[in-house]
């Protein structure tokens, strides 16, 4: 009896091996502050995995099973536990995630590095990842705030504001972004009169605004979120402290216009953006699959997932080391450009020993481990609408 049981388990085990199922983790904050956007991000990533599986070309007919886990966006220990479970009990070979900067850093340093599992984050934008040693395991499809800081500084300068006050949300994202902005802005000959951190979810921001106003400046640069940053903007406008505002990507959203009111008019900002045939192809795919294409970071999520699958194909095996070693090869030139929906073609080229340059939905170009080049949209708010000025 015992023997039979053993035999049947062994049989079941070998059967599952024969089905050759590759597992990939989808580690996003399904609960917590960004829970409204993560389901769409996961949908987009799973759409890419499905496309790869259904092509029948992935590693000679294997399929990819995505496994979701909750990063919580905020709680580093919960995210680490989730990542450990993905790797040790679900046996994923790579992780699409995590999302927010703090949990992504925790998972990378405490779990992924020791387990040797590669991860591609679709949304962690802190400049810290560019300099963190990841043994070639960490990549991201969202560009770093260091680049956005430089671009925003250029825009502010270009518009003739060389003396500005700066406020940022008091966390890794805000501080990293503010440092990047400050560095570029000072290098370009500008002056920052005062640099004040603000907290989220406060009732009253008049003290923070009072400090910025005391320091003076021709414009106020706000690098934060809609909640705190929006309140700062409204308070600063209503107290007459500043007339012109520049904002970072964290504040992009229709709620900002609704919550701030008339003070937002004429505000200039930047946000990572993608346009062109890759984006259109993605939008068409997403619409067909019932995925919300317009939600934040869905394109980056699709690209992150596709890159993992293509890297495994290029390696010829779905192992963490193989995937990690091939991500840069498939993402960058040289090679045949691959757009969303063309993953099967990419898999075929790779299977035949060719090279591809995955463009994806966001014109992916990875600058070494941990950094993506990225494109930015410069917009100005006119009559309550985001109007594109140009792309950088």
């Amino acid at each position, binding site marked *: 009896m015992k023997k039979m049981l053993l035999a049947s388990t062994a049989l079941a085990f070998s059967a599952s091996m024969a089905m050759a199922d590759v597992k990939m983790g989808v580690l996003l904050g399904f609960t917590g502050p960004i829970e409204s956007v993560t389901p769409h991000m996961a949908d987009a990533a799973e759409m890419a995995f499905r496309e790869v599986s259904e092509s029948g070309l992935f590693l000679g007919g294997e399929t990819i099973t995505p496994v979701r886990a909750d990063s919580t966006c905020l709680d580093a220990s919960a995210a680490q536990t989730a990542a450990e479970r993905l790797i040790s009990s679900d046996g994923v070979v790579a992780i699409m995630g995590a999302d927010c900067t703090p949990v992504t850093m925790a998972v990378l340093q405490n779990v992924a590095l020791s387990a040797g599992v590669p991860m591609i984050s679709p949304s962690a934008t802190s400049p810290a990842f560019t300099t963190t040693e990841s043994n070639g395991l960490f990549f991201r499809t969202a560009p770093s705030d260091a680049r956005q800081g430089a671009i925003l500084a250029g825009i502010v300068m270009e518009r003739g504001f060389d003396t500005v006050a700066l406020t940022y949300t*008091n966390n890794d994202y805000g501080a990293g972004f503010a440092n990047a902005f400050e560095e570029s802005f000072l290098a370009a000959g500008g002056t920052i009169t*005062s640099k*004040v*951190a603000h*907290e989220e*979810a*406060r*009732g*009253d921001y*008049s*003290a*923070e*605004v*009072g*400090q910025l*106003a*005391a*320091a*003076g400046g021709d414009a106020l640069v706000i690098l934060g979120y809609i*909640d705190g940053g929006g*309140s700062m903007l409204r308070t600063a406008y*209503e*107290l*007459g*402290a500043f007339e012109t505002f520049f904002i970072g990507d964290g504040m992009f959203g229709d709620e900002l216009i609704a*919550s701030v009111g008339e003070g937002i008019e004429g505000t200039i900002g930047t946000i990572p953006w993608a346009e062109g045939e890759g984006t259109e192809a993605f939008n068409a795919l997403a619409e067909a699959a019932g995925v919300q294409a317009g939600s934040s970071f869905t394109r980056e999520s699709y690209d992150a997932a596709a890159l993992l699958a293509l890297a495994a194909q290029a390696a010829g095996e779905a192992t963490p080391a193989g995937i990690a070693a091939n991500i840069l090869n498939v993402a960058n030139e040289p090679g045949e450009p691959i757009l969303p929906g063309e993953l099967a073609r990419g898999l075929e080229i790779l299977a035949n020993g060719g090279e591809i340059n995955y463009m994806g939905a966001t014109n992916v170009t990875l600058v070494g481990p941990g950094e993506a080049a990225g494109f930015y949209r410069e917009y100005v708010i006119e009559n309550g609408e985001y109007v594109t000025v140009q792309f950088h």
Partner: protein
Amino acid sequence: MEPLNALVSVSNFMLIPAFAYGSQLALGALGITLIFSILRFAHFAHGDTMALGTAAVIGGTWFLQARGIGIDPLPTALLAVPFGILVLTGYLLVADRFVYRYYRKVKAKPMIFVMASLGVMFITNGITRLFMGVGETRFEDGERFLFTVRQFRDWSGLDEGMALRSAQAITIITALVVMVALFWFLNRTRAGKSMRAYSDNEDLALLSGINPERVVVITWVITAILLVLAGTLYGLDKGFRPFNYFQLLLPMFAAAILGGLGSPIGAIVGAYVVAFAEMGITFAWRRVVTYLAPEGMEPSSMMQLLPVDYKFAVTFAILVIVLLFRPTGIFKGKVL
């Protein structure tokens, strides 16, 4: 030397916000002081019951807005205040009936009361979040400004501007009216006198025929009125977010203790001292001093005593200093 510009600037960035904030604190601190002197315990559920009352007002506001009833240019929420008071009075009386009354009967120590109110705080906290969520709710409508910075600048011709939001003006006026009414009630009416008698000496009051349960009910009703008004005014001014109301507990207690627990006038003075200290100590005075200083003597530093992040530290410091050096507070109240 431009003293007018200096005055306008300091009013805009500090005096007006601090005055409004102080008025909101004063209403809350009055409730704390009343409960402390009559029911004889520190009411820790103060901030969260305030949030619950405000949540009821917001519910009433939505109900009225949906039916197109308003009192433009004043915010609709003012119409919904009586409803909020009704709900909160009911809630506080139920809490008293099921929690506090028992401890009053067994003459429990004040610390046990405090712990009981802590329990009520957690429950209230949960109820509010159940209905309102944890995010920010803005329910201000009507005219937002009495005058804006730009209007003021055009009118006065000064370099500096000053804005006065309707919510701030309503807050200050309402608070003053309510304070006067409360003093009139406590000093002139029979019910008010019986409350003060009960507060001074429970046994003597009983002997002279004062019904303690009636005094307790009146205290809760007045507390509910004060809390709903304070919460609504705070919400109109700064937006409703349950956690911020919980956080108001510290400055409200600091105000009540600073003024002297059990002294209504102390609560009001304490509230304004706390508000002006919080704003004044973390205020960057550079702009103001620049206007006042003689030519060539303008300061180059921010002239700020503490960074803005330390606002709450100021309140804590006030609390600690008062408890160390003058535990009875400014107006010789009771010792906690």
